[in-house]
């Protein structure tokens, strides 16, 4: 018989500490949907997504009911549309975004990711068309998410793409200015993008993946924080790391159970469990509060990077034994607007974009959900992207930038996206410009560590 203490611990995690499975994401390959005629191709995309994912939401809900575990989102990721659009003669590729949006609405999934282009070394015609259409695509659709990979440790940084993405991020915000610039919240610029990430907005289904796959993203910052709050007082750093590891193990085991069950019921191979600590705006479900529980007065003060490094590493170590395949981003996310603790630290002035950039060197992703003043120049956005991508490239890790220029607003104001995306205070950026550097274009060479063979 199971011990009562263990049973009550699990129930308490779900009831009071926001433990949940954040997402079941079905990855679907669209490589067989290509056609010269864009209407035919986008029609095939719609049909295939609807056919493969027809039972996704229901299966998720069934598992939720049967096991009593909240499964917050059911989502879909697809092959980067930059590849699918390659043979199309028409360059009006927004049609693909509309098909994906329609399929998502029809199936009841809240996000569909993969309006993406992988251009770390250079552009193909399809990639160009997709990137160029991102502002419109994210303005006319509701559930489509977009990402662009502009660099990797192996390829270096495509500085032409970096330059282009500064403009695209700004235009995307401008086109959705009447809706709190929500478009930019669905656009991620990556370096070293993982091909099996189940989390939005950066999810896409890589070309090396099988035709269809189930990836699961677990969560649980609230559980880690509660464990530290309960037993962490007076403990050394080693013991804190052990507590995080043990908690991450338990959380990931639950994710693995759900992933296996979903894969069995949908007759789709199981891909990976992504064991990320993903915060939500709910009070208590915050990564910043975990760092504060470790002994920081406020997230963002000196010591934050070290505490985050400990957390990110311990989460991986605890989770990796709990699942047969760990992948995606796996670590701790630090999206400012989605994390109650980060929002409050930013409002107090304890957390700024410079400190966040340092933190991204040791967290699992990058500058995430950061609202910047609306008058920021496209070149400055590009420069922020370049800085962040350089950190990823040199450290052989994924980094990403999801900035939201708050059109018509300045530092001190707020943007309110609602739901999981939360509320973001407009954060000031550093002075000076890098216009000449960004406008040079070209490719930033891959670092020496790319030559591992």
């Amino acid at each position, binding site marked *: 018989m199971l011990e*009562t203490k263990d049973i009550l611990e*699990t129930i308490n995690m779900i009831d009071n500490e926001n433990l949940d499975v954040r997402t079941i994401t079905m990855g679907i390959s669209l490589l067989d949907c290509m056609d010269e005629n864009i209407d035919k191709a986008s029609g095939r995309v719609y049909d295939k997504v609807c056919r493969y994912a027809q039972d996704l939401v229901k299966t998720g809900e069934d598992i939720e009911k049967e096991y*009593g575990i909240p499964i917050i989102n059911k989502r879909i990721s697809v092959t980067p549309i930059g590849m699918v659009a390659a043979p199309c003669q028409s360059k009006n590729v927004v049609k693909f975004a509309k098909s994906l949006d329609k399929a998502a609405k029809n199936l009841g999934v809240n996000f569909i990711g993969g309006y993406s282009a992988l251009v770390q070394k250079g552009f193909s015609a399809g990639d160009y068309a997709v990137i160029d259409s991102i502002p419109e695509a994210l303005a006319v659709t509701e559930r489509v998410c977009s990402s662009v990979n502009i660099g990797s440790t192996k390829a270096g940084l495509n500085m032409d793409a970096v330059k282009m993405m500064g403009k695209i991020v700004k235009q995307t915000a401008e086109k959705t200015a009447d809706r709190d610039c929500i478009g930019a919240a669905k656009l991620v610029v990556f370096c070293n993008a993982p091909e099996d990430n189940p989390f939005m907005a950066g999810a896409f289904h890589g070309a090396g993946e099988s035709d269809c796959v189930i990836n699961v993203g677990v969560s649980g910052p609230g559980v880690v924080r509660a464990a530290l709050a309960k037993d962490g007082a007076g403990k050394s750093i080693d013991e804190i790391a052990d507590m995080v590891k043990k908690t991450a193990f338990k959380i990931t085991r639950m994710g693995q159970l759900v992933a296996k069950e979903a894969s069995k019921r949908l007759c789709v191979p199981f891909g990976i469990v992504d064991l990320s600590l993903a915060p939500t705006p709910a009070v208590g479900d915050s990564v910043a509060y975990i760092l504060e529980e470790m002994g920081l007065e406020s997230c963002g003060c000196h010591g934050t990077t070290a505490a985050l490094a400990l957390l990110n590493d311990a989460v991986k170590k605890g989770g990796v034994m709990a699942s047969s395949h760990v992948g995606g981003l796996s670590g701790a996310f630090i999206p400012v607007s989605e994390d109650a603790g980060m929002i409050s630290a930013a409002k107090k002035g304890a957390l700024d974009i410079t400190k966040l950039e340092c933190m991204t060197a040791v967290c699992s992703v990058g500058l995430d959900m950061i609202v910047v003043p609306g008058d920021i120049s496209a070149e400055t956005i590009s420069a922020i992207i370049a800085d962040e991508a350089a950190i990823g490239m040199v450290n052989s890790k994924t980094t990403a930038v999801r900035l939201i220029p708050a059109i018509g607003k300045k530092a001190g104001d707020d943007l309110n996206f609602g739901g999981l995306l939360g509320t973001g205070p407009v954060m000031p950026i550093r002075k000076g410009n890098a216009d000449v550097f960004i406008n040079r274009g070209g490719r930033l060479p891959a670092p020496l560590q790319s030559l591992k063979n």
Partner: protein
Amino acid sequence: MKAIITVVGKDKVGILAKVSAACANADVNIIEVTQSVLQDMFAMTMMVEIKKGDIELDALREKLEKVGEETSTKIHVMHEDIFNSMHRI
């Protein structure tokens, strides 16, 4: 399939009886029960067996949640696998 029922709340007369009666009505067999009363807090865990074709877990949960309301206790019904996967290697 096995499920775990937990009941937590202020101790009073008839909690165990009401929960067991609801299980019996639903044709659910109780395999094991552990119960403890600390001061006046009542905590009980039950392992039950639900045969295929009998009641769905979800329906059993609804019934027991009603019992929870009547007895002012918090009742959870969950699949055994969750606890096994979380607490056993």
